């Protein structure tokens, strides 16, 4: 699948973090974004749209990232979830992977890392 055709869900309570991630992905050709500002919104948007890839923060209000991963994995065991968090402790990483996340990105965002994650899954422009 081409990146430009992929639905990309970004769940992060920081509008700035969402913008920075969108800017990186847009530069690579992605343009179909869904945005959630907490875990519950991310679950709802996943249910309605079944995006090809989900970028999720862990520390979020209402429902945190780990709870959102669990619920999304119940909806679709093949869901492709990448955690993007400032709290990249070994335990947090292990927990996210055990819950079903496929990748873990430590903030601050590094565009090369996001690029390599997307290139391993989608065709570029």
């Amino acid at each position, binding site marked *: 699948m081409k990146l430009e055709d992929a639905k990309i869900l970004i769940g992060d*309570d*920081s*509008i*700035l*973090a969402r*913008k*920075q991630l969108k800017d990186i992905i847009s530069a690579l050709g992605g343009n179909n974004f869904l945005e959630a500002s907490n875990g519950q919104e991310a679950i709802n948007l996943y249910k309605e749209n079944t995006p090809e890839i989900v970028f999720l923060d862990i*520390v*979020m*209000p209402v429902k*945190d990232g780990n709870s959102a991963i669990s619920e999304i994995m119940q909806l679709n065991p093949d869901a492709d979830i990448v955690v993007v*968090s*400032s*709290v*990249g*402790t*070994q*335990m947090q990483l292990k927990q996210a992977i055990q819950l079903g996340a496929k990748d873990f990105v*430590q*903030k*601050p965002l590094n565009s090369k890392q996001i690029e390599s994650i997307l290139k391993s899954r989608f065709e570029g422009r």
Partner: protein
Amino acid sequence: MFSQFFGNFLLSKGVVTTEQLLRAIKEQHSRHLKVGTLAIHNGYMTANEVDNIVIRQTHEDKRFGEIAIEEGYLTEDQLTTLLQAQTPDYLLIGQILVDDGVLTNSQLEELITTYHTENKLSELNGEHKENLDALIRNLMLLSITDMPEHLTKYLNLLFNNLVRFVGEDFTPLNPRFCSEYVTDHCSGQVIDGDFQIVSYVDVDRETAISFASRYVGEEFSEFDEYVQASIEDFLNLHNGLFNVNVSNENSIELHLNPPLSMENTMLSSVDDSILLPILYPFGVLNFLFKV
């Protein structure tokens, strides 16, 4: 990292004004250290000897090092050592203040000696973690006498993150206890677990806009949602990285709560909180901690 604390030291001693310090900080990237300043710092020459050479240079077209060797103040080897020496970055701030006529070479020499003695700096030329910890403890001693180890660690990382994500041109002002605080544009976050740290960062509108421009790396001209989010994002990033360090170094897993933003809010539960203002050329970031 030492120039930030040297700035605080100079302000505390009342030998410079905030404006004079900020001007020196702004100029430091366009200036180079002079041989005379280095010679005083290394103990090869006195301030008077340096001043004598500077006077001779006004009517003789010779380099500083050349005259110093002629006068017998320096040997060839000492001059080579000086030219190759690694020096702490606060020395340049001091030299700019001398050039600006705010301090004399003698005053600077004395201030540097006092600065080292008061802070018990061990490796004068190094930027060792122990030295930074000592500087932080001395700075905070002004408000708390029994500083918890994790607060030193927290502040050490904060100063490093400010350098990394905002810029090195800041000066920590003296911290003080604060019983009531009315915020301007503020973000707060709680870390809990084996110990708790409640942190806030509060800024005025104009400072927030300049902060966001630096932190995001984009020019912002008005206070919008991204500017507001940049304050919260920095605090969340810093606290997240602190959790990672504590987990790696002490095997302690802390819990980070989502950050909250507030405006014109009275922080009523700030009894015994420490207010640490960080002065940047574009404004002041007010950090509040409750530990």
